[in-house]
């Protein structure tokens, strides 16, 4: 398994993600400059968090036109894991690799805090090792994370098991109070039909070590481990062990 972590100008979390992959999980991972990305030799690609191009115009818009995105698209078509975290999620929606849009938080402010999330589907490359209904804790940090799509399209996502994570309260309910940004249906992460292209606003790389978690959790690791053992999304089943 060899993972590419893309670096766009303005990316912030590429070194953090690399640290977790290499030092915590012990997998092979490279930092790849967006203009130099060649997918051959890589089994998965991560678009990390941050503010590519300063989030000018809209979060992720300018990066979505990067030359790297052609290669990313090919990897998506090949059924390989394509993971967008935070800004990466925004880039994937702007590039049309995931449906919908991420708009400015309802509260209008940047929000940085730990949230509880419920695993709604284990169809995706990031969640297939987790039981449906599991509650995990990860931090969020974004100003434009309000997931919006047409009602019909969202129904479709639910039906296909493409909604993978929702913001929930302590008791596991997707209440308005638990929704940090006004996302429709409290959606925190989605995947494509095959489950190999995944976008989520929370930061698994910030929630992969007990020392960083106010709850002593390391739930981010399970998401990365899912990705690592995910084989091929094209048959619609998630990876085989």
């Amino acid at each position, binding site marked *: 398994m060899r993972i590419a972590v893309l670096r766009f*100008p*303005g*990316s*912030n*979390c590429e070194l*953090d993600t690399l*640290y*977790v992959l290499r030092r915590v999980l012990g997998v092979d991972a490279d930092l790849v*400059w967006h203009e130099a990305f060649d997918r051959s030799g890589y089994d998965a690609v991560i678009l990390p*968090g*941050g*503010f590519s*191009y*300063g*989030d*000018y115009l809209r979060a992720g818009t300018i990066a979505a036109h990067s030359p790297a995105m052609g290669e990313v698209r090919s990897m998506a078509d090949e059924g390989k894991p394509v993971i967008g975290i935070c800004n990466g999620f925004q880039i994937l929606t702007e590039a049309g690799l995931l449906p919908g849009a991420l708009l400015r938080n309802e*509260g209008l*402010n*940047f*929000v*940085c*805090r730990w949230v509880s999330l419920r695993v709604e589907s284990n169809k995706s490359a990031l969640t297939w090792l987790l039981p449906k209904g599991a509650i995990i804790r990860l*931090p969020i*940090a974004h*100003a434009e994370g309000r997931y919006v799509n047409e009602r019909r399209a969202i129904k479709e996502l639910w039906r296909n098991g493409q909604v993978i994570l929702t913001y929930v309260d302590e008791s596991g309910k997707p209440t308005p109070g638990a929704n940090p940004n006004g996302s429709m249906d409290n959606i925190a992460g989605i995947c494509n039909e095959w489950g190999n292209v995944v976008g989520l606003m929370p*930061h698994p*790389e*910030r929630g992969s*070590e007990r*020392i*960083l978690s*106010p709850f002593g959790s390391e739930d981010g690791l399970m998401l990365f481990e899912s990705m690592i053992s995910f084989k091929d999304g094209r048959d619609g089943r998630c990876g085989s062990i």
Partner: protein
Amino acid sequence: MLELMYSEHCSYKSSRPILKILPKEGPRVLVGPGYDAGIVDIGNGYVVAFKIESHNHPSAIDPYNGAATGIGGIVRDILCTNCRPVALLDSLRFGPPRKGRTKWLLKYVVKGISDYGNRIGVPTVAGEVEFDESFETNCLVNVACVGIGRKDSVVLARMDRPGDYIVLMGSSTGRDGIHGVTFASKAITAESEEERPSVQIGDPFMKKVIIEATLEAVATGFVTGLKDLGGAGLTCALSEMAFKGGTGAEVELDRVHLREEGMTPYEIMLSESQERMLFVVKPEGLEGVLEVFRRWGLPHSVIGRVTEGEEVVVRYGGEVVARLPARLLADAPIVRRRARRPRWLAKMLRIPKPKEPKDLGRALARMLSSPNIASKEPIYSQYDHEVGIRTVVKPGDGDAAVLRLLEDPRAIAVKADCNSRHCLLDPFNGHAGAAAESARNVVAVGAEPIAAVDCCNFGNPERPEVFWQFSEGIKGLSFMLRGLGIPCVGGNVSFYNEDERSGRAVNPTTVVVMLGLIEDLDWVTTMAFKEHGDEIFAIGRTYPEMGGSEYYHWIHGICGGRPPRARPERERASMAVVKEAIREGLIDAAHDCSKGGLAVALAIMALKGGLGADVDLKRVPRSGVGRLDELLFSESYARFIVSARPGAARGLKALARRHGAIVSKLGRVVDSPDLSLRFGERVVRCGIGELGRAWGESMRRYLGEL
């Protein structure tokens, strides 16, 4: 150009003789005051660079861009030592929060810091916010940055090898900010809002790219000097670098990449356009360095070379337009100012004691809702405090932020503090208290305080009363730092923070940023009570020191009385006990007593842990305290509250004896959601829920949704 170089901001013409008394030496000090940032050796081949700076005037005019460019400036100061910026802190001061102007200022200052700091990927991990009438016209926005680097690759802001190339990198040069420095040294007047050209606009995206490209360029090994362009632009940077390296320089202004047409040489030399860095590069490495800039898409121009001699020669269109001895520029004359104790002070110190409220439980709940005490979560949740995956103790969870070193298994702690009302009533003791409080804060999270930087904010130093505050303040700061054995490795002075019309100056405010080192990650400690049954201890003695307290101000509407006295030997003793108790694994929570005193400290530890506490106030070590409200809310220094598993008492007592400190068991952490503070018959009782609402929700209420 001379006017600019001599303005207060650049050359410290009236403050230098006073600042000289601060302790600067210590075994860990690598670079002390005089360079862009102080640099401290933390061992194992690593250094920490840190520095604080004020951006008060720009923020009062344009809070969003003023605060944002403040972050931009302080980050450059750290970056140009070749350390990676890993943390930001913000110390903010405003007028009373109900005022419309305060809301406007606070909202956009926070937004400016949030938009800029978050975008450059440097977490804002700690800070403080104080509200007081004196800051209504002149808000204070102080920002600090901390960086980590390798000791063997520190670069300094100087040019010392004739023949090296001088490269200007980053944003193009425009007319913005011309005369920004002279502006920063002026009082705010009615016309200030019209002084547009001085407002600068930051570009966090460009800055983020500059950070990465700079670190990469220096890693080539060919960069011999590095400086950011701040006040007075190229003029200041070139002359300072040449002066420090004992060289001269020759530059051609035609080569500078410009944003606007028709700029004169004078404007180019003085532009304060943001996001620019000056590199000095060995000739054989020039191409490699430029290649890094090209890959990151950063504009740059090779503007000249370092020369023998001591002259900065500036050419434009083939002609010499300026020829300036570096020494003259950087070495401003010193002005000696008169100092006089303000006459009004005596009256303020001698005020009658207010009556004790009947219901002290209600008073405590009200104290927690004071904007100076209430949770600042609505502010720090707008800052990305996690990026970099170093933040082990996050804002709100401990007295200081703790950042682990990814490079080795240790951590650093940082916090900025000052109680400006104490400083107003007694600049000497108040400033000593600021140093002590920031040190206590890093001790409480498990660190050893190793160095400090300070940021002085005062009124017009030409007024003898203000200059007295300043010189007394620095004496007090120096007294405490020397007493604690902590060097001051850098600082910043901002004068003229006053309203010209009313002559009202800000409270004298020297913010102290303390850096602590934690050798073992197991020592990291937070303030929340951990488990019911834990025992609660007070460390240090309480005196009836109510002057300038939050209790007097918020409950009784008074600003007066004698503030707490600074007692370095007591601070040392209390800190030693906490430090060692943490190392021995004796205690599981620690919090210092500051604003709001003992009662507020206990309440917050309980709230944070979601647990109650049962405390016998008769056991609080005290001296001369005759009233219950004084016991609860006195702001005496040198005190901590800690909690421990049962059985730790003996160990704590032994530590106290060894260090000459005083420790007393006050009570227990309990399961029920009540804070109960007993003094014989009298019981002050509050529900944790009520206290939690007062503390947790009031900031949002004062400000509407922030």
